[in-house]
């Protein structure tokens, strides 16, 4: 059971960061959807819900998604439904139900670096950048491979470009956690191939991306990229599936997603 001794509502991002930096017992709250499932005892919960981080802003070069934007807001946003072929919407629309998606936030999913996350997999294929109050701007990829930050995630930036993308996953039931998820994108002649919920964190597959960049996207190279992903990634066991099973389905998901991109052209 989650226990919270004290909850504070900072009036500025600076105040929120100061609390996190000076109070070792401080935990930043997202939507609490996952946090509440544990039996954690939190001395000071830092709530960002009064800092205006719940909006999506379109600029000339990007979409800026506030850290407290809910997954349901993302799912129903007309621009995000079109951007990158709607891959980010595909990644969130089957997470439990609309009521949970109204509670949980994109910032909570990203900051928590949850290995089962669907949106993180899509965001990697979109080359998302993160803005932290202390550390400033950092790529999602660097954040996932780093040691983590004791900081305040302010927003997630999606660079606007002519990217064609796709997200797909294998689930035991529609709204369950993914057994394995996959997102791909084509940006000009470059490609992104990302596999997550392995069950470890989402990761780009360099060998598959290079193969596609060198040979172009066809049904044959899509299949080969899937095989390269399965060969080059590590997979593990958890209650939703074995590593062996994940390795078997990985090429299928990668190929399916790439063919979706191919057919969208």
């Amino acid at each position, binding site marked *: 059971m989650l226990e919270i001794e004290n909850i504070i509502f900072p009036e500025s991002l600076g105040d929120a960061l100061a609390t996190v930096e000076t109070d070792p017992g401080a935990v930043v709250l997202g939507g609490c959807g996952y946090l509440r499932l544990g039996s954690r005892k939190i001395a000071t919960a830092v709530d960002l819900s009064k800092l205006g981080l719940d909006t999506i802003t379109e600029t000339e070069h990007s979409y800026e998604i506030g850290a407290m934007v809910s997954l349901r807001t993302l799912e129903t946003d007309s621009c995000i439904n079109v951007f990158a072929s709607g891959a980010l919407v595909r990644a969130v629309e089957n997470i439990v139900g609309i009521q*949970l998606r109204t509670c949980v936030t994109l910032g909570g999913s990203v900051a928590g670096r949850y290995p089962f996350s669907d949106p993180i997999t899509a965001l990697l294929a979109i080359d998302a950048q993160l803005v932290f109050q202390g550390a400033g701007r950092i790529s999602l990829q660097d954040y996932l491979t780093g040691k983590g930050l004791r900081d305040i995630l302010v927003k997630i930036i999606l660079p606007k470009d002519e990217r064609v993308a796709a997200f797909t996953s294998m689930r035991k039931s529609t709204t369950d956690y993914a057994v394995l998820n996959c997102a791909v994108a084509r940006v000009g002649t470059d490609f992104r191939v990302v596999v997550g919920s392995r069950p470890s964190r989402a990761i780009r597959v360099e060998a598959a991306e290079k193969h596609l960049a060198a040979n172009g996207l066809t049904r044959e190279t899509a299949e080969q990229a899937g095989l390269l992903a399965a060969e080059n990634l590590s997979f593990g066991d958890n209650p939703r599936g074995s590593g062996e099973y994940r390795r078997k389905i990985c090429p299928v998901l990668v190929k399916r997603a790439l063919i979706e991109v191919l057919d969208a052209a």
Partner: protein
Amino acid sequence: MQLETTINGNTVTLDFAAGEFLSETLRRYGYLSVKEGCDTGSCGLCTVWLDGKPTLSCSTLTARMQGHEITTIEALAGEAEEFARFLVAEGAEQCGFCAPGFAMTVLAMKRELKEPTVTSINHYLAGNLCRCSGYKGQMRAIVKYLGVK
């Protein structure tokens, strides 16, 4: 802790512990239509509207409710009764434990979905579980209630 919020159109002052979730607070204040089923944010039984949007009260901290508008089925008795007649006509109502949260989602769906289809209804309802039924009766009732062609 203490805060002022609006429940079913009435301004209410709530006393609560820092880590308390809204479903627990609402039940403590007598809104017993709000059920707690799974305690994992999966079943939708605790659905209330927060500023008009269906939300899991079991996953919403009461401390965040300052200045918000909470709606439970107690405020929607007339509409809920109308929908209940469709459920009864299709033989869909069984133990009834999931019914308040289910009805809150359906009534929100009626407001939000402009041209509902069986697919969009299914998607909207994915977060509401019923342990008694096979969902067929509920779907027939909703399709008729919403006038889906």
